[in-house]
C-alpha cells in the first residue's frame, strides 16, 4: 500500500484527558511540571491541527476557540503562554512565525514537516512519470491527478515551503507566473 494514500480522518477530534484538567490552562511555575505540560500542549496542537487539516494560527483569534479554550471547564490559555508554546514548536521544526518580523502574532503549524511533504510530492511525481514536465502549483495542489494524495488541497503557503525544499535539494525548479496560482514547477530525478 502506497504510504502517500490519504487516510480519512474519522469524526470529531478526541481530546486527551489532560484537556479537561483545569491546571492544563495555567502556566505552571514549577519548571519540571511545565516541561511535561509544554510537551502535552505541543502534541495536542499538532494532533488537532492535523486532524482538522488546519495550517495557520493567528494567536489573538485562536485562544478564544478550541483547542486553546475549553468551554466545558471555562478555561482558556493565555496568549503569552501560547506564544511560548509556538516558540517551542518552532525550535522543534513544527512551526514557523509568519507576518511582521518579531511581532509573533501568527504562524504556520507544520504538523508535517515540509521535508516530508516534499518527499511525498516527489514520490508521486516519480510514480506518475512526471519528471521533466512543468506543472502548475495549482494543479499540483488541486488537480484531479492528485486527488486521494495526502497533499491534495494542501494550504498554499505550506505547499510553497515543500517546493522550496525540493528546489534546495536540486530536485525541482520553480517558475514564477503572473500570480501565485500560475507558479510552475518542474521536478527532476
Amino acid at each position, binding site marked *: 500500500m502506497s504510504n502517500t494514500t490519504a487516510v480519512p480522518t474519522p469524526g470529531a477530534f478526541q481530546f486527551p484527558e489532560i484537556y479537561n484538567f*483545569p*491546571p492544563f490552562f*495555567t502556566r505552571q511555575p514549577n519548571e519540571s511540571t511545565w516541561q*511535561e505540560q509544554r510537551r*502535552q500542549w505541543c502534541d495536542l496542537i499538532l494532533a488537532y491541527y492535523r486532524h482538522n487539516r488546519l495550517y495557520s494560527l493567528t494567536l489573538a483569534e485562536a485562544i478564544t476557540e478550541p483547542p486553546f479554550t475549553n468551554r466545558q471547564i471555562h478555561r482558556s490559555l493565555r496568549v503569552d503562554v501560547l506564544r511560548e508554546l509556538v516558540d517551542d514548536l518552532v525550535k522543534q521544526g513544527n512551526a514557523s512565525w509568519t507576518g511582521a518580523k518579531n511581532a509573533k502574532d501568527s504562524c504556520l503549524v507544520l504538523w508535517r*514537516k515540509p521535508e*516530508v511533504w516534499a518527499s511525498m510530492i516527489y514520490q508521486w511525481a516519480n510514480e506518475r512519470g512526471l519528471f521533466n514536465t512543468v506543472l502548475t502549483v495549482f494543479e499540483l495542489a488541486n488537480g484531479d491527478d492528485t486527488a486521494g494524495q495526502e497533499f491534495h488541497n494542501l494550504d498554499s503557503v505550506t505547499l510553497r515551503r515543500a517546493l522550496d525544499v525540493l528546489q534546495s535539494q536540486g530536485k525541482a525548479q520553480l517558475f514564477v507566473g503572473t500570480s501565485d496560482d500560475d507558479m510552475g514547477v518542474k521536478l527532476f530525478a
Partner: protein
Amino acid sequence: ANEIVSMAEHIATQLNSPAASKLHRKDAAESDEDNAERVDAFRQYLLDLGIDSPVTRNTAGAVFHDELARELCDYLENYVSQCGGTVALVDAYCLYNRAREFSLVYPSDFVQACEKFEALQLPLRLREYPSGLLVLEDASSASDALIISRVGAYIASFGPLTASDLAAIEDCALTLAEERLWLCERAGALCRDESVEGVRFYANAFAAAAAVGAGRGEGDVQEPLWQYI
C-alpha cells in the same frame, strides 16, 4: 500610658535588682521585712499577670539574647505544638509581648533570640520561607515531607484546595497555608489552576504523566507515530 509603662519598668527593674533580693537575707533589718513583703506581693501581681521576673537587658546583660531565647522557648513551646507545630513569628511575638505586659521586648531582640534556638539546642526553630515569611517551628515534627503528605491527603479527601480552604482545615494563618501550598508545588506534588475564582491547587497530574512517559526511555524521539503515515 507612657508614664505608667516607665513606672512599671522602673519597678520591675527594682524588683529584680540586687538590692531587692537583699531584703530576703536572714540578717536583714526588721523594717526591711515589710519591704520584702511588699516586694513579694508585687512579684505575685506580676506572676498573676504573666511573666514572673521577666528577662530584661538590666537583669541579664550580655547574655540577654541567650536568656531570652530560653524564656521564649519555655513560654511558646506548648503554644506551638497546640497550633500544629508551626506558628507565624508575628503571632508568637504578639502573644509573648502581651504576656510581658510592661517590660516589652523589641522586635529585633525577639528575632535575635529566636535565631539562637538552634545553637542553644532548644526545641524550637526559626525558619524563613522563600517569600520572606518567618515562622517558629517545632524542631522535631515540622518537616517538609510531613506537610507534603498531609496536604496530599487533604486533596485526596476534599478535592482541590485554595489557601483559605487549607487555612480552615489546619486552623492556621492564611499566609502559612499559602506557604505550605507553595512548598508542595515547589516539590512537584501539586500544580495550580489560576482563574477569576482565585488559585486552586490540584494533585500534580503532569508528574504522573511524566512518570509514564519516562518508560519510553531517554533518547527516543517523542514524535507521535501519525507524523510518518
